[in-house]
């Protein structure tokens, strides 16, 4: 799958409380969650995020609470993929489980600037920075996780295996 979008960049240790503050967790409606995504560090995010845009994070992206509302909010806001240096483990699981594409690539996360045009080939794990004319490669997922991703998430994967 090929994804095209512009980079929206944040720093290290982006926690799930800033991705979606707990005061909005009295709902699990993706649209409502998306409207408040990132608001405690970037009020403009819902307005500036265009469908297909790619979120860039630093180290330990998605640390903190296990709330699946965090990847749900990011996905519903229109983000097609999150690229970070490293992901916190619960966020990593949740993103794969709900079918939000993520890539771990320290070089890309460091080099990409806000607004850079990106072309991401998920199956190859390659990230092309169209603005800078560079290509970065992310480590491929183990086969088992690729199957979950290809099924569209853990529920679909579990269902398909009866």
């Amino acid at each position, binding site marked *: 799958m090929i994804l095209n979008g512009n980079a929206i960049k944040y720093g290290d240790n982006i926690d799930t409380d800033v991705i979606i503050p707990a005061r909005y967790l009295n709902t699990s409606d993706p649209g409502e969650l998306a409207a408040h995504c990132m608001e405690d560090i970037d009020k403009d995010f819902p307005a500036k995020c265009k469908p297909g845009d790619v979120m860039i994070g630093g180290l330990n992206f998605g640390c*903190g*609470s296990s709330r699946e509302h965090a990847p749900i909010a990011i996905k519903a806001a229109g983000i097609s993929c999150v690229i970070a240096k490293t992901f916190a483990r619960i966020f990593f699981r949740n993103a794969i489980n709900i079918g939000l594409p993520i890539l771990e690539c320290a070089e890309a996360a460091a080099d990409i600037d806000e607004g850079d045009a990106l072309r991401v080939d998920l199956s190859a794990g390659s990230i092309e920075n169209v603005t800078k004319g560079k290509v970065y490669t992310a480590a491929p997922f183990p086969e088992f996780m690729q199957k979950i991703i290809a099924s569209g998430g*853990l529920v679909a994967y*579990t269902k398909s295996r009866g």
Partner: protein
Amino acid sequence: MAMTMTQKILARGAALDSVTAGQLIKVKLDLVLGNDITSPVAIKEFEKISVTNVFDKTKIALVPDHFTPNKDIKSAQQCKAVRDFAHKHDIENYFEVGQMGIEHALLPEKGLVVSGDVVIGADSHTCTYGALGAFSTGVGSTDMAVGMATGECWFKVPEAIRVELVGKPGKWVSGKDVILHLIGLIGVDGALYQSLEFAGEGLAALSMDDRFTIANMAIEAGAKNGIFPVDDKTISYIEAHSKKPYTVFEPDADAQYVKTVTIDLSKLRPTVSFPHLPSNARTIDEVGDIKIDQVVIGSCTNGRIEDLRIAADILNGRRVASHIRTIVIPATQKIYLQAMEEGLLKIFIDAGCAVSTPTCGPCLGGHMGILAAGERCVATTNRNFIGRMGDVKSEVYLASPAVAAASAIAGKIASPEAFDIA
């Protein structure tokens, strides 16, 4: 192949003779947990899977503890969805308001977790039960849904960091100071994808409540789990609370660790983590003059009876500063009752504290103590991220119950040593 304690528990759960770090395995679950925030999402996902029943109605725990007693209409709807699901599937361990407590204090107290168990919970602080010698870890709602349907979960077998504890802590140093110090040493991603395996002769000086607090915050170092060896204290606790059979696992003597971190408990000082990361740890001697507006004593980290006893010891016969709101939240009904019978609640109320029914409430900025812009809180909770307890411009300082109680009296961050009358 030599295994860590965590690896041994996972190997048994996967019905394998041995496992190695990095291996992907499917493990049978002894307990699946959810709360009023994460369960509604899990229930929706569960209903998409073509199964009629949960895998085992005795091995699921549903605890509405975050926005309860229902803080608003939307929260009431979410709790109703959990309640309806619990009734429909005849879930044995559903805890309604009135019997409910903060999940990670409640489950051990109810004997639902014992050593050797494999537990997942749709709450990041599920790692608390590592104090009992169980493998327990936080997951999201979809993992919870699949866990409820199949009784299984996939894991990547983690490597481990060995945390060697030596010496005996001083009077006002507790489990909270140990874990804040450790997170300060290794960072908020210092144990990412790894286990924190505690060891050493210093363990003997730590109570079960200390160990619950330490294991509880393993996630704040990015760890998959934190786990303690099983000793006489663990066995006494388990036998006093549970009828479940338990299995004691020990790490192999030649188990491989990524590294060993040694902490001399006798050298630890009361520790405070400054905004906005739990790793911003400073000793009480380094805090300077930080005026505060609120104190919260409670949460899954520090709402247990020992925590309340320590706070009461300092607040006894004293008053909290006139401009400070001090909120004390016993973590379970049993702890609440015990605190009442021991006279702790009277001490708190006489000192000018508000005492609340069990709830996660303020810890995650839900209700029962939200901060305004510019306000500062000393809290015995577990996270001090931006906006965690309220306004984006508010600040949370993480500390032990002793530091929190002393700070409530002083009106600024203070050492419990200032109130030492012994």
